[in-house]
Structure formats: C-alpha cells, structure tokens
C-alpha cells in the first residue's frame, strides 16, 4: 500500500511537471523541434532539469536503497532495432507534438487530439509487442 501511494505521488509529480512546463501544449513541443523556424527553447530547459535531477536523485537513492534500484546498464546494445524504433517514434512525435506522457495527460484533460492519439498509440504498441517482439527490457 505504501508503495502504491508513493507511485501515485511520483506519477502526480511527473504529470504536474509536464503541465507546469508547457509540455502538454503541442505548440511548445513543435516550437522546440522547429529549429529552422521560430525556435522555442523551453523543452531544452525541461529536459535539462529532468535529466539533472534524475541523475542526482538516483545517485542518492542508489546509495540509500541499493537493493531497490534496477541494475545500472550503461552499455546497452546499439542495435538496428533501437535506431529504427527511435526514427519511427521521432516522426510520429514531429507530426503531432505528442510523446506518450503528454499524450496521456492531454487524454485525461479530454483534448480531442489526445482522445484520438492515445488509442492509436495503444494499437501501435499492441501490434508492435505482438508481431515485432518485446524490447530488451
């Protein structure tokens, strides 16, 4: 029960951070990706804050609760599969400005685009996991 409460709080922080930083607004995301247009650097600050705080928090957590942390794998294989998947994801992200987290947040906010996007994403995941195999995890 304590774990589930912590997970709800962790999810709440994640979702609140997405909305607070403007990442649930596709215009901000596309603005960042539009480096040859009117570039909006907001997403770079979000990523910087997230990557830095994750690295610091995990350094603390790994020292405090080493047994609870997943094994650290810094040299996972760089396969054709990894690159192909990232290309397909990047194209989809560039079309709509939704990646999975913001899409779920906007789904909950009943934004019409997300109400279409999330079921399509789920179908893509189901097809991929059924016919293209699971990823390495």
């Amino acid at each position: 029960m304590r774990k589930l409460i912590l997970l709800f709080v962790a999810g709440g922080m994640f979702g609140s951070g997405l909305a607070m930083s403007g990442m649930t607004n596709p215009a901000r995301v596309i603005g960042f990706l539009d480096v040859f247009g009117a570039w909006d650097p907001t997403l770079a600050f979000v990523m910087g804050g997230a990557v830095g705080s994750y690295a610091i928090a995990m350094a603390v957590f790994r020292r405090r609760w080493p047994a609870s942390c997943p094994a650290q794998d810094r040299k996972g294989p760089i396969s054709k599969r990894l690159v192909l998947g990232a290309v397909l994801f990047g194209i989809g992200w560039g079309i709509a400005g939704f990646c999975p987290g913001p899409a779920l947040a906007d789904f909950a906010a009943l934004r019409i685009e997300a109400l279409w996007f999330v079921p399509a994403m789920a179908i893509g995941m189901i097809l991929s996991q059924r016919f293209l195999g699971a990823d390495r995890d």
Partner: protein
Amino acid sequence: MNTSTILLAVAGGVLIGVGSAIATVVSGRIPGISGVFGRLFRPKYGDSLWRVVFLCGLMFGAVLTMLLFPSAAEYRPMAPLAWIPIAGLLVGIGTRVGGGCTSGHGVCGVGSGAIDSIVATMVFMAAAIATVFVIHHPGA
C-alpha cells in the same frame, strides 16, 4: 520566452526527474511512460497495478495543475485531426521497437549515462526535427 517560462520549465523538469527517480526505486524498473503503459497490454501476473497507479497519478497531477494554473492549461494542436491516428501509431510502434520514449530513454536513460539511450534520444530528436521541417517549411 521570458524568465518565468524558463523557471517553470526547469521546475517542471525537476518534478519530472524526481518523480521518475522515486518511481524507479519503488517499482525497481525504469519507469519510461511508453514501457509503463505499453506493458499493460502484455500483462504479467502482479505487474499491472503499479503501472495503473503511476499513470493515474500522472493524469491526476497534470489535470490538477492545468486547473490551478492557467499557463499550464495552454493548448494549441499542431496537426489536422486526420493525421493524429497516424502519429499515434508511429509513436506506439516506434517506442516499443526502440524500447523507450522521451522519458525512458530521454530522462532516465540519459540521466543514468546509458550510451544506447543517448543514441536513441539523439536519433528521435533528429527524426522529429526533420519531420517538423518537412511539414512546416514546405518548399524550403
């Protein structure tokens, strides 16, 4: 973009990073959203409840923040509705084939110094930038 936008972006990023780190320790897994969500459709016994709870927290936190702060509720769609299912399919297939999204590879993987995640993040960023260029600067 002004100072308050930058501060909100960094603060939001820290919430995302610390939330991800807590979820990593509590679940013992890398809590990338595409993996947390996608694996709900390939359930293993005892492996679904934590995913649902984490994602419900995400949706609750996002909607609450949108209700409390008008700036967080700003929203402007960037693609015609007819393109949205295609984008969703590509994101669904791509994240499961590539083993992660902006959070799993981009935040957790890069934050852990994982080489494969750094490569994946550079590739999906480049692909997304190229896609936006083609769509928004036709004839350039």
